[in-house]
């Protein structure tokens, strides 16, 4: 077989005409790559562990609407859970106890709120009743808040939001009530 060197190629070949369209192929490939890249970047973003907490409005199990931005001035403990999740059941009594404690020691300063991730509202209601939870719980069956806004990767996950609406704490998996209290107390002290 005759071996063609690069200079041979340029000398003997006649340029193919009308191949402007061929570069469209490169463009097409580039667009596909770009879209995949965009999706990857979106995917790689983790939970919001600082900055402004994404705002949302959900209707609670009892029918009362809840809007996060209306809680400005209060510290918010945002807990994502589901009735089928065992660690959520482990942490529920501790969260309820903490909520009750702050309701007595610092009334109106700390708002606990639960958001259920892809959970049947009836099952969520049964869970709430079983653990005697008094703070609002909002069903998020479409996972718009839990997955799209807060990008949680599982339940339970808890976010601590200060009175200015900034995320200042993130707890992955079941919350240790001591650690949570240790994070809330300085915020209360600073504000007063």
């Amino acid at each position, binding site marked *: 077989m005759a071996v063609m060197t690069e200079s041979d*190629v340029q000398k003997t070949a006649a*340029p193919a005409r009308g191949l402007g369209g061929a570069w469209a192929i490169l463009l097409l*490939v580039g667009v596909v790559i770009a879209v995949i890249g965009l999706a990857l970047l979106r995917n790689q973003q983790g939970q919001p562990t600082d900055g402004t907490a994404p705002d949302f409005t959900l209707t609670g199990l009892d029918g009362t609407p809840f809007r996060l931005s209306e809680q400005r001035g209060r510290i918010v403990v945002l807990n994502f859970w589901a009735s089928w999740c065992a660690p959520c059941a482990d942490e529920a009594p501790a969260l309820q106890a903490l909520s009750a404690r702050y309701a007595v020691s610092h009334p109106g300063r700390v708002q606990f709120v639960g958001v259920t991730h892809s959970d049947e509202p009836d099952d969520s209601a049964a869970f709430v009743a079983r653990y005697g939870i008094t703070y609002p719980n909002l069903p998020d069956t479409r996972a718009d808040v839990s997955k799209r806004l807060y990008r949680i990767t599982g339940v339970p996950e808890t976010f601590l939001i200060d009175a200015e609406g900034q995320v200042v704490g993130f707890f992955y998996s079941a919350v240790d009530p001591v650690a949570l209290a240790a994070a809330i107390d300085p915020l209360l002290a600073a504000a007063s």
Partner: protein
Amino acid sequence: MIAEIGTAALALSLAAAIYSIIASVIGARERDSRLIDSGRMAGLLTFPLISVASVALLAALLTQQYQIAYVWTVSAPDTPDFFRITALWGSQQGSLLFWSLLMSLFAFVALWTHWRAYRPLMPYVTAFTMATLAFFLAISLFMENPFARFWITPGLAPDAGVPSYTLIPPDATAPDALLLAQTARGLNPLLRHFGMIIHPPMLYLGFVGFTIPFAFAMSALASGDVSVNWIKATRRWTLIAWLFLSLGLILGGRWAYDVLGWGGYWGWDPVENAALLPWLIGTGFLHSVMIQEKRGMLKVWNMFLVVFTFSAVIFGTFATRSGLVESVHSFAQSEIGIPMFLFWAAMTLIAVYLILLRWRQGVLKDEHAFAGILSRESLFVLNNVIFVALTLAIFWGSFGAPILSELFAGTEITLGAEYFNLVTAPLFLVLYLLMGIAPLAAWGAMSFGRLGRSLLRPLIGTGVALVVVYLLGARSLGALVGYGAVLFAAIVALWEIGRGAVARRTATGDSLVMAVIHIFGRNRRRYGGFIVHLGISVIGIGVIGSTLYQQETQRTLRPGESLEFGGYTLTYERMLSGQIADDGRIMDIAEMRVARGGADLALLRPRYDFYPEAQGMNTQIIAGAYSTLENDVYVLLSGFENGDGTTAPTATFKFYINPLINLVWYGGIVLIVGTLISMAPGAQPATRRVRADADTRVGAAA
């Protein structure tokens, strides 16, 4: 010690790969044969170096060095030695090293065997294989190092998790060895099955195998030698890669069927599909490459095919390890997503650019440019259209639509089996029809009449077979059309083999058996190909049967209770709960007797395994199955209640009848045999002809 050796070997091999790229490219451009040879040496060196690293990791696994984070993650003191060895590719870091090992091995063989025959191409072949290898080595060395060890540093909180480091941090102390051994994770229970052990190596061999044709194609473009040389060099590589990829896919299906406990073998999960994409394009490439070899046509098209096969390979690896889409196969969200994406994007764009450049320069011109509308060439083009269409459709369903929907419509969608069956079934149907028609079509051009005459007898045969199928119970139009197409392809394959054997027998007086052996020997590629088509048809029959005619039911039974299902009598005899296996798992085994028409057929033992030590996935449902050619009687234990004083103990089972499913596995074996025949080196044609002439002369004289 082992960790240091391993990391050093990795670092040296990365250095060798990078040097090899530079030396080969500069050598090629400057025509400096010493640089080129030096680049080749460096490339050859990567294999022994990575082997050292692999042996080091293996040694670490076998000697239970739990301070090495990888060993701690994939093994535990009670892990049997066999699984210690297979744990080498059990998790991310090990599997990346394993990939590099195979890549360097294939590069070694390619650089060793093809150096003299294809000298002008080889420098760039070195460069491109080493570029791919260097990427994976860099990931292994800097991001997912299998030799990272746990070290306790002074500032660490007492109950915090101990991080792992590649380089020893200052003032570090090793964690307590006993504590490490006690807390070691152990191999994921899912990976303790034969199919799962062999499925990743097979897949990697397939993926890595396709890198060699890609490197040769890129070399053809870069060096300017776009003759059929690069195809000649890589024909066997393509077949080998294709074989391993096919095996990997079939074994993955078998593993899913045996161990994942949902009665099926292909879930259309995005990561499964990502491994199917290179197989589809690769098969199209295998076929259209024949047109370039024979007629010098489709040069640009073949370049695109081989580039996109490689691109699909890298994309598949990227999609699996980056968590791009949710999948049951996903490794944990890892940080290598972005580097893998960049590598995939860069390689694909560079390759496409090179093709377009050469195309523009008029270098990739077809040698002949004629074919009739009805000819082998045009049917091969149709074949390619279908394979590419299948690839695009499956890519769209697994990645395109879900990603676009989430990014721009804000809605998360799932596209599952229902979607894929709807979209791909018609395309597969046409593919089987083509498998039947194309071998009967002539090169160049043929008339409809001639094609019709060639098709007549195979079509009659298909008709007869369909009547049999109908009588055996297949009544729906969809099933008959599907079986018809698949049987048609199989009958044409058998027909062509028969025709060739009869022609040989007429010419030389051989017996029929000798004739068959002879034609296989002289035309391995052609007749091996027919066997592969036969294998694909057998798989097709199995797929249609098990998909369209599957029966399932779920019942709760008391011990001694029977169930009539699908013509079988299934009796739940008893439960053996709390059995402890030698690897510590706790098994609950149900005994189910299968009988038909009063005759006892088998005792099945579906079971529920619980691994008390394992993290995460710690239960498994293992089916009990009675397999015959006709079907599988497949039973899963879904759950059981022990019963208290007043209520009887019960167990809940899922029963499946999967007709013809074993043809999927047997078809796979036929496929392997056919591919091996195709790949076998043949004797030189000239000597063969002389010997044959001598034989006939002797025979005539006698």
